[in-house]
């Protein structure tokens, strides 16, 4: 008998983990159609078992591994025993049933599934093979893996339906007998026969995972407090008070949200505010669409002020945004996204005029190529790049072009002039002008940079609008052509209808008239009414028969009686049928007779004989007939009398003959002869 731990195994002949756990166990269950959310299930069960002493990492590992392997075994029914390549349409037709039970010394994770027919299961010596790790196929490999990770493994199998269950058991440290874990039992293979075992072993309670208080169980114990204001205070731009900052924040926020549903982080609003100061009202541009946040990021990038922290969160998205829009390499974008470390931008802040060698090279390259230069590989951004090239040319002009050379020349020339000029006022004025010129150059440089950015943004928006308009035009063209086609179709249909109408008119002329159809219709209606009545009668008849049948069935007569009755009824029916036939025949004869009489009458009537004359003749004939009948009767009476006389005479003749014979034989013959003669004479 299989055992693990102190608690006796109650039953292995039924599916479910309750049989391997004690009576006081709790079993949690759920039905899974895919491997999604198994992390959540693992979280929930771990939270529920928290404090029971189970090894959480071991439990989670085994749970997730079991679910995946069972899922693969069942899913392979459709696509083979392969790794999943699809994520979205990976639902199972029938669910995996996961049961996770716990008693006072162990946890059992059971998964019920159906093994694919493609997988051949060889139960013979399966346990030994798993113990020796001599697996034959991927399914046995799965069992071997589970066996290795659990303290005890049970494999239940119903050979006819190929329904299976794998129960992995892990002991709870400090509660399970250490010997049980040390002497790890081999894989227990159980052939389940459902018919033999009707009653399932009961746990203390079955709990659906949905019935657990999961919001409470999964709640984080230590929550981070909501972010408050900066401990170092809010920095305000020049000429800005706390009040108008809030006001502007709100205004900007409402402006932005009215343009798009997405909002912008307050930090980026602050940056925008600064930008507004520098560029006036023009920069409050919102690109409608889905990239508002990215745009906020681009503004921050343009300003290069206090956005490192913000960018840390949004960097990835902004990268994507720039990659999408500008087609620039990731390294370039990265360099753009870290403005604090950008030497060029830092220079622009501190007024330095020098550019990096790389930038110089890029700008020279731009100049060499002219307006057609395109360092970016994307072809569809040509216009953008052209405007960008213009802006960069301006920038380069400011940095290394004639203006820059002029400033440098002036700076070089100012030094000896200042030495030569003795007037302090003139020297101061020259120096001031020189510094102002430098700062003006820096300002122009900064403005050109921003101009570049704004041109880009505007061109993107106009490009989008153009694309949208073109698409709209295309759509409208398609709609127009569809409508034209529809009109053509309608015209054709109209023509067809007109032709049909003409044909119908011609046909109508051929037909004798509408009255004929009306008559036909009336006739059809009558036939229909009769058919309906008949139908109704038949329905009634069917109902009656059904009732009779029900009555017959409810009376519960024996079949022999029903048979006898049936035979009797049949005989009766035949008799009645014959009678009916006879009646029909006689009826027919009568009808014939009647018809002949009628015919005779009609003939008589047709001959035109006077009825009164006929009657008279008939009466005369009747009288004559009566007289003749009387004569006939009298003659009959006379005939009868004569017949009687004849009979008498015959009898007398017979008597005389006898007497004659006697006289011949006797002596008195002579006398007799005399007598005869006398009599003869008398007669």
């Amino acid at each position, binding site marked *: 008998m299989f055992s693990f731990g102190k608690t006796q195994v109650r039953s292995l002949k039924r599916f479910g983990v309750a049989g391997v756990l004690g009576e006081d166990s709790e079993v949690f269950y759920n039905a899974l*159609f895919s491997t999604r959310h198994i992390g959540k299930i693992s979280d929930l069960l771990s939270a529920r078992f928290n404090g029971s002493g189970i090894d959480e990492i071991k439990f989670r590992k085994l749970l997730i591994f079991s679910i995946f392997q069972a899922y693969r075994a069942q899913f392979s029914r459709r696509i083979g025993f392969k790794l999943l390549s699809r994520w979205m349409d990976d639902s199972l037709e029938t669910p995996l*049933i996961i049961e996770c039970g716990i008693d006072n010394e162990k946890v059992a994770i059971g998964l019920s599934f159906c093994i694919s027919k493609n997988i051949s299961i060889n139960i013979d010596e399966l346990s030994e093979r798993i113990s020796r790790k001599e697996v034959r196929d991927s399914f046995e490999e799965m069992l071997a893996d589970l066996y290795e990770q659990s303290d005890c493994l049970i494999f239940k199998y119903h050979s006819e339906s190929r*329904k299976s269950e794998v129960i992995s058991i892990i002991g709870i440290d400090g509660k399970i007998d250490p010997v049980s874990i040390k002497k790890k039992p081999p894989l227990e293979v159980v052939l389940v026969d459902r018919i033999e075992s009707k009653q399932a072993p009961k746990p203390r309670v079955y709990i659906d995972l949905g019935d657990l208080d999961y919001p409470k169980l999964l709640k984080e114990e230590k929550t981070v407090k909501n972010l408050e204001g900066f401990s170092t205070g809010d920095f305000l731009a020049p000429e800005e008070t706390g009040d108008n900052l809030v006001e502007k924040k709100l205004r900007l926020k409402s402006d932005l949200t009215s343009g798009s549903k997405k909002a912008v982080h307050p930090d980026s609003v602050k940056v925008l505010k600064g930008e507004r100061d520098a560029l006036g009202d023009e920069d409050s541009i919102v690109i409608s669409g889905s990239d508002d946040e990215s745009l906020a990021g681009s503004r921050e990038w343009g300003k290069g002020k206090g956005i490192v922290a913000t960018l840390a969160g949004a960097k990835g998205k902004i990268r994507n945004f720039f990659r999408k829009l500008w087609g620039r390499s990731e390294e370039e974008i990265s360099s753009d996204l870290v403005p604090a470390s950008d030497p060029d931008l830092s220079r622009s802040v501190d007024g330095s005029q020098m550019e990096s060698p790389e930038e110089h090279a890029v700008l020279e390259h731009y100049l060499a190529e002219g307006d057609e230069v395109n360092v970016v590989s994307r072809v569809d951004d040509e216009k953008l790049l052209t405007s960008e090239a213009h802006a960069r040319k301006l920038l380069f002009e400011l940095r290394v072009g004639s203006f820059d050379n002029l400033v440098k020349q002036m700076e070089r020339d100012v030094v000896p002039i200042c030495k030569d000029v003795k007037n302090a006022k003139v020297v101061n004025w020259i120096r001031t002008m020189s510094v102002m010129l430098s700062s003006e150059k820096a300002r122009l440089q900064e403005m050109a940079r921003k101009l570049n950015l704004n041109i880009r943004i505007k061109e993107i928006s106009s490009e989008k609008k153009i694309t949208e308009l073109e698409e709209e035009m295309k759509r409208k063209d398609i709609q127009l052509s569809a409508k034209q086609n529809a009109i053509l179709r309608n015209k054709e249909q109209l023509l067809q209808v007109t032709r049909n109408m003409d044909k119908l008119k011609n046909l109508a002329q051929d037909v004798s008239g509408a009255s004929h159809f009306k008559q036909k219709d009336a006739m059809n209606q009558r036939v229909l009414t009769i058919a309906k009545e008949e139908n109704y009668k038949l329905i009634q008849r069917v109902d009656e028969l059904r009732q009779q049948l029900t009555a017959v069935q409810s009376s519960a007569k024996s079949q022999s009686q029903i048979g006898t009755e049936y035979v009797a009824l049949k005989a009766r029916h035949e008799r009645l049928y014959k009678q009916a036939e006879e009646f029909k025949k006689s009826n027919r004869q009568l009808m014939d007779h009647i018809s002949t009489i009628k015919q005779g009458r009609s003939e008589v009537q047709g001959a035109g004989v006077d009825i009164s004359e006929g009657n008279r003749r008939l009466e005369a004939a009747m009288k004559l007939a009566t007289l003749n009948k009387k004569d006939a009767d009298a003659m009959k009476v006379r005939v009868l009398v004569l017949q009687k006389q004849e009979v008498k005479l015959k009898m007398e003749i017979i008597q005389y003959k006898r007497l004659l014979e006697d006289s011949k034989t006797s002596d008195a013959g002579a006398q007799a002869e005399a007598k005869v003669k006398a009599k003869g004479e008398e007669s």
Partner: protein
Amino acid sequence: MEETLEFSAKKLRHDVVANLFKVRIDSIKPYALMLAPVYIYLKSNRKLIAVKGPLDFFTASELRHLIPFKYFYFSPFIAAVLPYREAGRQARFVLNMKEQEVVGKAESLYPEIILPPSPFERSDAILRIIGPLWWKYKEGVGVDPFLVTVFVNELCMLFPTDKLMLARDKDIENYDLALLRSSWVVFLCLLLGYCSLEFINNIRIQVFDDVINKKLVKSDAEEILDIISISYSTLRSSRLKIIKSDVFSESDEKIGLKLAARMKRVEREFLSSGSHPPSIYGKRGFIDV
């Protein structure tokens, strides 16, 4: 022999029209199961006559012919049915939930996605929807199988038309039972946390077919066979008034124990009670007892 869901009033007097619910005929879909007896108003006869019984359906041509009547009329019983239909719709929403992106959050600097609920969250949500469909009747805690069918009819997709037509033509008496049983199986599956719309649609059609063809249902999953078995044993006739919850606790099978455990929560948290529990029988229903 099975009994059908014969309703009592085949005709209604015209003066009750004001108390009836009506639906535009052109809003009815062909092959949708009717939730109650359907009446039309004959103006010339000043009478309402029934054109379809409960759980019957209209074909497209039938609807075309009836469109001149403009409205179908339903008895006030329909008011008791509508919460079940609404629950069906809610359940379908829960089972259909997909990922969605959250927009408009002020703090959002990254794409925020709400993942669909996990199986146990769905199971909980479904129980909160179907729990109040159980009522405290005089006989005990239970649910009317006809109303369960109304709920499932709204939750699942329409039956394939050919199956419906064949089933009705084949055996009208068995047709009602097939509808009730298939719905009851779906209801039990939901009660046990089987929260996949595709699965419950399939199992409903499969059970419907098997009842019509009087075959035994086959399934790969052990527990599904148990569910079907318990559903058949608890719903033997289409004239069963209510299915009581205590049939689960009486069972020794694992499935019965699981259902009984869930019903305990239903009775504790969601059970509906009132002086007039919804039923198709009696004055408030459509079958006079």
